[in-house]
């Protein structure tokens, strides 16, 4: 197999090559390890070698031999897991996350652990304690976040596919910025055991891939009830390879009220074009209302930090990770946490603690939970009329490094379209819709198109996305060399 053929093969194609004997598992692994080794995007925080890549990995399996990159938020026994934080810089877990166990059980070697925003808090990967990851389309721009490293390595030809996590858009938004596919499945479909918690009622594992088929293949391996996670249910019936070519009889709802100010011209243009393609495939477009979705960011930035503030309290210098002071108990706590956490994490811990504190719970956390209910109801109502809800994935294309770091709220606004689905717990996918220039001028950069479906309707979602993907015909190969030094 030639190197360019190996590079061009996505997960499904690689699996087929190995299964048919056209390429050997060793050949494939060596190829990708070498690619990962020339990481110019700071996409990897840790890279495997041949031996460590295969440790604990089944020899056979449906996707045997196709290597995978794993966001450094998943605990991997014996392999450093940092969540891109100084707090866990030296942490080596004594156990492995269920999701990782499943991909290993399917025969997928681990290429490495990818960069991310610290503790999954961010939309640009600029909050990593180990430097930002870069967008393969333009090294001066962000790949998105928090699964920035995973998106970058897949788009930049440093891994065929990757695992990420999505809490408010952290798979979909970077997928959109990097021109690849990113899926956030229904909350509860994939086990969270071993996935370092940010916001427990929102976090979900999901695939970042070059194709919708790849996302489906990974989802099928990952999903399932796990007795180590009380909130996991799996997806009944599993996931089959998508095969639809048309969208006849399906309705796609557009929440026009949400799509207004702050959206770049190019993004809007690609969005409208994609709607036309849906129509060409036989789908119907309808206007819908999600009356409370405009409050989603506010609700999210109360709920997520609140849950994060308690989830991150265990990082205290006692049992593992950083201990920055031994002077007395209070100093151990305060100095360790002051030095171990970056500014965004501290900001969210403070915000979350405030929202839960005595006298403020009802006005903030309590209220945000009720607004969440309203948003759940909005989607329930919408899905009574339409099969899917569609939006641009983000209001903008990938922005420049440093562009939004001054104003936290401006950064939070990037999640405008993705957060409502997270709050409702419903599945949503981002597929590349084309390229566009940013409003202020610049290179052509990927634009993501988001499709959301009712809870546990992943099969229909993937089928529809597959059909649309075919019609769009996005070509991301230009970026595949953007990852190597």
């Amino acid at each position, binding site marked *: 197999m030639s190197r360019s053929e190996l590079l061009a093969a996505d997960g499904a194609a690689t699996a087929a090559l190995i299964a048919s004997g056209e390429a050997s598992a060793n050949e494939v692994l060596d190829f990708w390890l070498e690619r990962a080794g020339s990481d110019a995007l700071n996409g990897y925080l840790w890279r495997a070698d041949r031996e460590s890549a295969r440790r604990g990995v089944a020899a056979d399996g449906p996707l045997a031999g196709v290597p995978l990159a794993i966001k450094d938020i998943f605990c991997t026994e014996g392999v450093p897991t940092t969540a891109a934080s100084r707090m866990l810089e030296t942490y080596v877990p004594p156990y492995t996350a269920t999701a990782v166990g499943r991909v290993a059980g399917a025969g997928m070697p681990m290429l490495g652990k990818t960069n991310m925003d610290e503790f999954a808090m961010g939309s640009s990967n600029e909050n990593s304690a180990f430097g930002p990851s870069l967008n393969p389309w333009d090294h001066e721009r962000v790949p998105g976040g928090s699964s920035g490293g995973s998106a970058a390595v897949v788009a930049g030809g440093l891994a065929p596919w990757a695992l990420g996590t999505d809490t408010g858009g952290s798979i979909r938004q970077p997928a959109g910025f990097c021109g690849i596919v990113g899926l956030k499945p229904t909350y509860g479909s994939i086990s969270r055991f071993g996935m370092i918690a940010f916001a427990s009622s929102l976090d979900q594992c999901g695939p970042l891939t070059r194709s919708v088929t790849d996302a489906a293949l990974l989802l099928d391996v990952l999903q399932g009830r796990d007795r180590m996670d009380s909130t996991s249910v799996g997806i009944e019936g599993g996931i089959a390879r998508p095969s639809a070519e048309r969208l006849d009889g399906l309705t796609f709802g557009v929440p026009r009220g949400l799509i207004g100010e702050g959206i770049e011209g190019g993004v809007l243009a690609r969005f409208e074009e994609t709607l036309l393609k849906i129509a060409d495939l036989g789908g119907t477009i309808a206007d819908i209302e999600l009356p409370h979705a405009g409050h989603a960011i506010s609700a999210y930035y109360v709920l997520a930090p609140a849950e994060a503030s308690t989830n991150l309290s265990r990082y205290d210098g006692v*049992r593992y990770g950083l201990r920055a002071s031994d002077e007395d108990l209070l100093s151990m706590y305060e100095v360790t946490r002051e030095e171990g956490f970056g500014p965004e994490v501290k900001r969210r811990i403070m915000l979350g603690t405030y929202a839960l504190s005595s006298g403020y719970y009802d006005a903030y956390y309590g209220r945000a939970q009720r607004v969440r209910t309203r948003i759940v109801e909005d989607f329930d109502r919408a899905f009574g009329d339409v099969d899917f809800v569609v939006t641009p994935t983000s209001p903008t294309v990938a922005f420049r490094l440093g562009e939004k770091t001054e104003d936290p709220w401006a950064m939070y606004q990037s999640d405008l379209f993705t957060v409502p689905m997270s709050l409702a717990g419903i599945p949503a996918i981002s597929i590349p819709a084309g390229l566009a220039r940013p409003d202020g001028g610049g290179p052509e950069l990927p634009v993501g198109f988001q499709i959301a479906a009712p809870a546990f309707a992943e099969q229909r979602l993937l089928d529809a996305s597959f059909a649309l993907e075919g019609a769009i015909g996005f070509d991301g190969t230009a970026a595949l060399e953007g990852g190597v030094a």
Partner: protein
Amino acid sequence: MSTEYEAVIGLEIHVQLSTRTKMFCGCELSFGDDPNVHTCPICLAHPGVLPVPNEEAVFYALQIGAALDCELSPISSFDRKNYFYPDNPKAYQITQAARPFAVDGRLGDVRIHHAHLEEDAAKTIHTGGAGRIAGSDASLVDFNRGGTPLVEIVTEPDLKSGAQVREWGQLLRATIKQLGVSDVNMEEGSLRCDANISIRPAGSDELGTKTELKNMNSFRFIERGIEAEIARQKEIVAAGGEVVQETLHFDPASGELHSLRSKEEAHDYRYLPEPDLVPVVPTQELLDRARGSLPELPAARAQRYEEMGVSEQAALLLAFETEWAEFFEGVLDAGDAIEPRVAANWVTGEFAAELRKQDDQPLAESKVDPAGLATLIGLVAAKKISHGAGKTVLEAMVAEGSDPEAVVAEKGLEQISDTGELEKIVVQAIEDNPKPAEQVRSGNEKAIGALVGAVMKATQGRADGGEVNRLLRRHLGL
């Protein structure tokens, strides 16, 4: 004019459940093992771990709720209680704040506000610096205990004195012990009791400022501690001062109360619903099983015995100790028409004392069986042997496991029941002891003792004391 003050006391009792594994992970429960040999990523609060509740702990909790006559909640859920301390690895404890599994119960005179499930903290051992917490060099944390299932029982402030707390506490302990869901051993820490104490003018409805008394490991110490605290509060108020909210520890050795920490800097626990756990909705089948599985509990058992005629004291003693209650009931079953009152007195009195006397024999290992004791009691009741002789027989039974009738025969302990024969001896005794006889005839009834003694000597103790007395009095003209 001085105001009379009354004490108002509420209790928070923590019961460690005797399940095999911890509340939220599969580590085994233990006591006294080497530190940190029963831990896992979950109870060590590693990044990424999640809790899954122990179904047996939930069932035990429902049984406790049923035993305390509580309403068992149709939906209960878990919450996070946030605070930083080395023995609290997640820096939050998973507990039940908003919707506990049981509410509105009662045990004896005391109403139960609610009972909830939670996980125990780990153990911190303070090293260095002469045992004081502050000023010592370091602490060592052992996570074996961390995660043990606890049921916390909170009473209404219905208790009024240290003595009542001790008695009620003992009833609660016996009740939970009867269920078999906990060792309820205060010294080992499987039962812990904290008291909230305040005082108010007698008859008032308002509640005064309360203090909290913690860390005492016996109900007797709790009683003394509470009494000391009530006295302290009364003194303060009598001097015109105000009671300050604080946490106290009672040192039984010195009888002094020490402040542990001021409650002014009260924790802000920032409770929120536990997102990693889903609600518990007990099925009717489960609730029926919990209620149906209750054995006869001590309070009910004591009442049943009292209704049979057993003395209150003996009824309580038996009801609090299942083994003894079963022995007692065995005696009743074996003997023909044995009076329960009499049987209870023999079991809790003479028999218990004899076991203690003979090297503190545990009941379970005793050579005496209920049927044997029933026979002995029957012999005494029928006046075939005197009560005193009965004790002698009992001694042999406890020591050797001997058959009571055989011992009576062997030692010649049959009571003289022939009134004619006895009367002859009585008359002889009066003749032989003219002085005491004269004293009795002239009004000094106490002198009859010497004559009774003479008769007993002549009969080698085999006379029925009551009968001897009756005959003497007749022959002395009383």
